[in-house]
């Protein structure tokens, strides 16, 4: 794991160039260009707001206005979900690099996660602006780097794991779409974790999901303005570290097979 971290540090110039390339290339040729980084989350928000205020109105008092609550969870979730979905195919897509150039393959999943992190960070000011408009912005927003770090470690670990394994088991890409869908509903993004009764089976199940703790922390820091989920966040961090170690280990194990299999 230390070696994997060191490799990422050693190749930081490469990672940095590739992340900026990824960002530049993504919207190149579209009319709105970079504005899509802002428009995308807004449209996403619009859709969910429509669903949960008009079609299935949510009237729980502690999470009103609901669209804002939703926004707090959906932004980091989008980062998480896009990172995993994209990283599963990233080695196969970058096959040319791995086969023809001496290229540190672990850079590819890392670039995916980091590029999506940048998208997340670019969308964050919009969320902050909405919070400020509603007068809900609190000092706890300054603590955001903590859940971001936890999520980064967890995403990197899973991305390393998935990217290497998908080369050998291509079915993963197809399964992953559904797993992520289920995972989304198993994470308190469109409902409130607090509203689920203490001691219930559902609550216990949700607690096993590291993303629950990360998302709840975001919601507390941004929406509620008070944070008491530290223990959960710490557990999520431990899970993240384990995931990173496992991902790095597997990636290293499969590294030599990658150029031959892609």
């Amino acid at each position, binding site marked *: 794991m230390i070696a994997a971290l060191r490799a990422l540090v050693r190749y930081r110039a490469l990672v940095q160039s*590739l992340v900026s390339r990824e960002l530049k290339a993504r919207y*190149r040729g579209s009319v709105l260009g970079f504005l899509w980084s802002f428009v995308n989350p807004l449209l996403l928000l619009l859709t969910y707001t429509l669903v949960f205020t008009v079609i299935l109105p949510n009237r729980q008092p502690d999470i009103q206005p609901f669209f804002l609550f939703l926004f707090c969870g959906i932004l980091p979730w989008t980062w998480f979900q896009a990172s995993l979905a994209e990283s599963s195919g990233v080695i196969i897509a970058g096959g040319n690099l791995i086969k023809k150039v001496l*290229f540190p393959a672990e850079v590819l999943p890392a670039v995916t996660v980091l590029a999506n992190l940048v998208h997340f960070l670019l969308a964050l000011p919009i969320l902050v602006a909405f919070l400020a408009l509603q007068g809900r912005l609190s000092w706890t927003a300054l603590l955001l780097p903590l859940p971001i770090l936890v999520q980064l470690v967890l995403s990197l670990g899973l991305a390393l794991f998935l990217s290497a394994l998908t080369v*050998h088991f291509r079915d993963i890409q197809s399964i992953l779409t559904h797993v992520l869908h289920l995972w989304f509903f198993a994470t308190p993004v469109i409902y409130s974790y607090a509203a689920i009764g203490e001691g219930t089976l559902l609550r216990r199940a949700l607690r096993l999901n590291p993303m629950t703790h990360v998302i709840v922390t975001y919601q507390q820091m941004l929406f509620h303005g008070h944070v008491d989920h530290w223990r959960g966040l710490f557990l999520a961090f431990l899970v993240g570290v384990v995931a990173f170690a496992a991902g790095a280990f597997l990636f290293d194990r*499969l590294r*030599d097979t990658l*150029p*031959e299999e892609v």
Partner: protein
Amino acid sequence: MSEPAIVGRDVTKVYRRFTHRNQFRTLKSALLTGSVLSDLRPEETFTALDGVSFEVGRGSTFAVIGENGSGKSTLLKLVAGITKPTRGALSVAGRVSALIELGAGFHPEISGRENVVINGVMLGLTRREVDRRFDEIVDFAELREFIDAPVKTYSSGMYMRLGFAVAIHVDPDVLLIDEVLAVGDEAFTRKCLDKIAEFRRRGKTILFVTHSLGLVEKMCDDVLWLRHGKAALRGDPKRVVDAYLTHVAAGEDAQLASRAAAAVAAAAGGPPPEAVLGEAPAGTGYRSGRWGSREIEIRAVRLLDGRGRGRHVFVPGETVTLALSVHAPRPVDDFVFGVGLFAADGTSIYGTNTDIEGFSPRRLEGDAEVRLTLDGLSLVEGTYLVDVAAHRKDGTPYDYLRGLHSFRVKSRTPDVGLYRPAHRWSFAGGAEIEAPPPRGELELGDDSA
């Protein structure tokens, strides 16, 4: 030679053959073994390189030659560190830059400028080093006016040029080149060669894989010939290249021989004689086949060299004899033997027969042999088809074998056309011109086993 820059000891690379069976059947086996080959049966693997040992001296230019699929590119990838040897050891001293695929990793949507930076970083330069060399790279690629356009708008030549320019400016200690000099136009190829020559002068090590044997003889200090993944021969360029060419010619020889046998066999069941009496099928151009009444049968056609050995590959200037074994079941007194030579596209080069040249037939019965000897084969490199025929004076065919036999001419001189008259150059007056070193044709047929 000082200490070597690249040392390979017993390098072996085994690939997995394509099978539908997954390499790791379970996640557990992937985690536990982490190795591709551990549980594969021998028929599921392919040995691309088999115990190759070699050394490349620091500052020398080393070429790897061999037929397609002989393991050249695998060797290059191993030296580049892209894949690891299955067995054996390989060590490379210094920074390596591999020109294996030019412009690998260019992103089509972003500009040439950004791609140069990213590609440079990918190949191991720092940001600052790229910035410092940027102008040089762009000038070398001759793309100054297009450098801010997205790479997807580039022509393939521009793309390759930019890729080559970046790779060559990485300033490696060891440069690996995989048959990439067929890039762009004549002028750019020359520039690449000049750049490579400059590398040599500066004492850098170059390893390259190529089919351009002329280049090998001109530029290399040392050559390794790979054959089916094994080192066939290594050493002085001229010696290795000659041995390789002789081997290739022998292979072609065998191939032509078996093709001729197959063609004759296939034509045996060809069109019935009466359907094609008289001339060859008209208006259809040159098409191989066999027809005739078989009152005289051409049972075998052999091509012999000056020493009477059967061959299918010759060099210009050699004496070639065409030997026909014929058989007439009943006595025949009206017969003509003819031979025609054609280029591969069917262009007639030469044709003659015994009647044209005034021979008068008397009688043919049983087995006989007819020989036509060409003194000094005056053809340039290429594949040639042979027609042989036995027919009546009025042209009615007994046995006509059209294009069923062929031979190849191999030459070290890349002159063009079909016919090579015996010739020599001379210069007088103000012309000052240096004669090339004497360059004989290949010696074929001595060790072509």
